[in-house]
């Protein structure tokens, strides 16, 4: 059953992808990852699931302060420095001690001395939020949507806990890292969705990302979300017809010629999108592909078809 809102490519059980508490949204810069993350978070909130949307180092809001956006939806912007400091305070068991030792340039150096520690502590903060419980014992958040950092290999953030556990092996950091890595890798607890565009570079990067993610086994991939997908007007028959018409019709009427030119342009654009979609399908293998829709109405979400 294909819903007009859903581009269902493979018969994978798509509902499965959105049941986990941790929902990572990955993708390179400029693909619209933040919009998709917000939309997904909105969707969950609308399902009456207590949802936390986590942004990493965005330019908005005071870092590490949770604020309520609307009913069932909170958001927090994590800053790596703030998370690193919070973690160290936690480990030192005393804010006063921390200030005594760390509130100075040496602390900065120490934090940066261990590359990746700031990313690890951000993941730690996210993991911490996933373990928070309400007074009645239920989880504080049913869903945590993470708008992942778009930098570097993209995988670094997902792999950081495993890397630290491998390296440290003993000690509080290793212990915490192990817990984080286990949660992230657990297909019942977390999924990684990838946002892309049907353009050469994003599709190429998405293919690489999926490949590396599966190899590293750091986390289970979820859905591939295609953003800014254009409308498809010309099917194969019409495409051929159009080409023939271009050849047959002498450009007597300039308006007609202009219209045909626009049509040809649209066809070219569609061909490029189709080409990229094929490459993406190959790379995505059994992962379902979603088309993301920018819905304006409050009760319409691009994942509404999941119901």
């Amino acid at each position, binding site marked *: 059953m294909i819903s007009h809102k859903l581009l269902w490519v493979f018969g994978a059980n798509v509902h499965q992808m959105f049941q986990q508490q941790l929902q990572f949204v990955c993708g*390179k*810069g*400029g693909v*619209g990852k933040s919009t998709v993350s917000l939309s997904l978070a909105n969707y969950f909130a609308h399902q009456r699931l207590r949802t936390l949307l986590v942004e990493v180092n965005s*330019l908005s809001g005071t870092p590490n302060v949770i604020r309520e956006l609307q009913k069932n939806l909170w958001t927090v912007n994590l800053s790596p420095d703030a998370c690193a400091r919070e973690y160290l305070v936690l*480990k*030192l068991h005393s804010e006063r*001690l921390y200030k*005594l*030792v760390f509130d100075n*340039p*040496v602390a*900065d*150096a*120490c934090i*940066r*001395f*261990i*590359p*990746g520690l700031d*990313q690890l502590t951000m993941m730690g903060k996210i993991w911490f939020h996933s373990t928070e419980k309400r007074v009645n014992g239920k989880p504080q958040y049913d869903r945590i949507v993470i708008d992942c*950092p*778009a*930098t*570097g*290999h993209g995988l*670094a953030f997902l792999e950081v806990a495993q*890397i630290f556990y*491998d*390296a*440290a*092996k*003993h*000690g509080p*950091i*290793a212990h915490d890292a192990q817990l984080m890595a286990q949660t992230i890798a657990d297909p019942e607890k977390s999924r990684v969705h990838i946002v892309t*565009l049907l*353009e*050469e*570079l*994003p599709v190429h990067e998405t293919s690489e990302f999926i490949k590396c993610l599966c190899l590293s086994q750091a986390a289970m991939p979820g859905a591939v979300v295609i953003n800014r997908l254009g409308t498809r*007007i010309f099917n194969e028959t*019409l495409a051929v*017809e*159009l080409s023939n*018409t271009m050849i047959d019709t002498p450009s007597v*009427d*300039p*308006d*007609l010629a*202009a*219209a*045909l*030119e*626009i*049509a*040809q*342009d*649209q*066809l070219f654009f569609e061909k490029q999108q189709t080409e990229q979609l094929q490459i993406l399908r190959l790379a995505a293998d059994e992962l379902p592909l979603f088309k993301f829709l920018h819905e304006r109405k409050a009760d319409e979400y691009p994942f509404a078809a999941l119901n």
Partner: protein
Amino acid sequence: MSTLSQLLTDKRLVVVTGTGGVGKTTLSATLAVKGAQLGKKTLVVTIDPAQRLKDLLGLTEADTQPKRVTTFSEPVYAMILDMGRAWDDLILRMSADKKQAQAIFDNRFYRYFTRDVVGSQEFIACDILYELASLDYDLIILDTPPAQHAIDFLDAPNRILSFIDQKAFHVLSKPPKSRLAQFGLRLVGRWTGLMQPFAEKLVGGTLLRECIEFWQLSQVLFTPIVERTKAFQQMLQESHSAFVVVTTPHAHAMAEASVLIEQLRKRQLRLSGLVLNNVLSARIPKPPYPAETALWDAVLQAVQVREQAVAVQTQLVKKIDAFGVESVVHLPHLGAQLSPVEGVGVLCGY
């Protein structure tokens, strides 16, 4: 309306910025050809370009040194700045032998630092660019990576620099006399006492050792690079250097362009102009269609889609005045029948 030539007047270094997908690389190639037409010995440096753009300039992955471009008759030089390989290339150059280099490549912190720490690749890119700027090109066009926040390329090296500059870094990376006895902290007595057991308890295993190894190595590497990176950043501030912001008439690209312009102004970096790329012709044809067939229905639909796009474009273009940029160049959307090389030829006329 300004021309592309105006963007290049009196410039030796032009940095092309903008969010992903706005046509930066094509524009960089166009500006390079334009520069050559103006009689300048021009080099275009591109970062991680798509395949068809590598084809445009006749480049392959191996072309990490300037090479004369054969796809255009004008004398243009081009190269790929492979940020991913830049660090490894540097290590290979500076290592005594392959074994030493391999030991470094195997260090997990080296891998993490050069691949994933924000700023490290931009940092080494500055070093390479400084080198290039000292060669005898009249004009260098720098195509920046398609980041979401295109300003990352400017900010990124500073994170690395600010860390390296700190005295503490030098202290921390000195080789310890005993196993962890003086974990580099010869600062103030009480800090030493407090830090040591903390460090030991917190980061057990080989983690610390590898970490120290990495920083010891980097002290050797960083010092020469720091100077050159700073020098390049200085170069960006000079009067012969300028930035060009590229955008298309789409909401996300325009929003990013707006942020970018603001950031450039804040840093007092020269903005030589804004290029609005992929501008659709506003003329919407309304012909009488020959027949009511599926084909003509489709053509009509395509025209309607174009009409919508033009409406959006018109609204967005109005906002450009608010950016307060003196030179704005409009480049047309190129027809599908043009090859990339022909396309650049057309754009050079603007």
